[in-house]
């Protein structure tokens, strides 16, 4: 047992809460360690001092003052709502805490209902036209101002959903791609 361990169990030793084995080790240590022995004696003496320290008493006017305060409380007018919940527990809580909790829960429920997404017309989600998207055809690459000098670029509005969709659907197929090249050549 080292000094730290001894310091940790000084109170338990004084209050006789240690096992016989621990008491033996404690005794062995304080017999050989002057510092810990001093601490042990100091703590023992402190406990005795605190136990026997003088007790104060309340002043003579304590009871009369208390009586006065209680009389004031008894005669104070209480509003009907307070009287209704006076000396009662609401859901096991003091009324004010219960009301605060209930209000908080109701507020949270209202907030949650208000924040829930209203999904009344789900088709709108996909059909809103937003902006004009350049669609590139042929083998050309887009540059900063494609519509100005690149004849291969067509500007197609997304509002024209069918055409865009058709274009997207056809984009992957080889035959359509060839057909489109042909169309461009014809145009030239």
């Amino acid at each position, binding site marked *: 047992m080292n000094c730290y361990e001894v*310091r*940790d*169990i*000084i*109170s*338990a030793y004084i209050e006789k809460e240690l096992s016989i084995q621990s008491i033996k080790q404690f005794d062995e240590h304080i017999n050989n360690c002057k510092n810990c022995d001093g*601490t042990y004696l*100091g*703590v023992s003496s*402190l*406990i005795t*001092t*605190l*136990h026997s*320290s*003088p*007790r*104060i*008493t*309340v*002043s003579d006017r*304590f*009871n009369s*003052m*208390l009586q006065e*305060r*209680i009389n004031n*409380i008894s005669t104070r007018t209480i509003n009907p709502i307070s009287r209704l919940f006076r*000396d*009662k*527990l609401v859901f096991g809580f*003091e009324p004010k805490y219960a009301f605060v909790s209930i209000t908080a829960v109701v507020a949270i429920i209202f907030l949650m209902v208000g924040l829930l997404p209203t999904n009344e017309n789900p088709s709108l989600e996909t059909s809103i036209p937003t902006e004009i998207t350049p669609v590139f055809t042929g083998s050309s690459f887009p540059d900063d101002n494609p519509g100005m000098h690149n004849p291969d670029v067509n500007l197609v509005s997304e509002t024209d959903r069918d055409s865009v969709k058709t274009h997207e659907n056809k984009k992957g197929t080889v035959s359509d791609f060839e057909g489109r090249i042909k169309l461009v050549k014809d145009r030239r």
Partner: protein
Amino acid sequence: MTDKHQYNDEELIYRFQQGDEVAYIELVNRYRNRLINFVYRYIGDRNDAEDIVQDTLVKLYTHKHFYRNIAKFSTWIYTIASNLAKTELRKRKRRKVTVLSKMGGEDREFDPASEITADEFAEGRHTEREIQNAIQSLPLHFRTAVILRDIQELSYEEISNILDVPLGTVKSRINRARLQLQEELKHVKQKGRKRI
């Protein structure tokens, strides 16, 4: 009134809850001095301690129905007193900060309670003032635990319920508080010896 002595605290509070005001008076008589010793040691001022005990007993009167017979009455009343004392200390701390900010350095160093006279030192034991100062120097959670144990002489279980911390924590806090108090008192004695 004499027959009230045969009732324990829990029976008295039950009778008070049923409207027996004599039971309240008996509870006040049983606890007023115990509570004032606890609060005085905790906050270090007798007048404030008396006010806090009054508040505690008024709360007992107005909130009697909030006591439920699942814990000892003493635990409940000490918890109320302890909470009120903590609130008072918080208020004081705020006031102290304001006052200290207006003080000069010289004013701040003056602390008459920490001075020890030669007569006190000659007694060869810790004076009441030294003990009180040493207790005041403890952190609040150590202070409460050691007062309840060594001055109020409550059991570890009761202290654990009042402080709402596990039994092991209570034991550890009390041990550490005692070690710190012992160091503090040793230091005070050494300082006194040097001065003499």
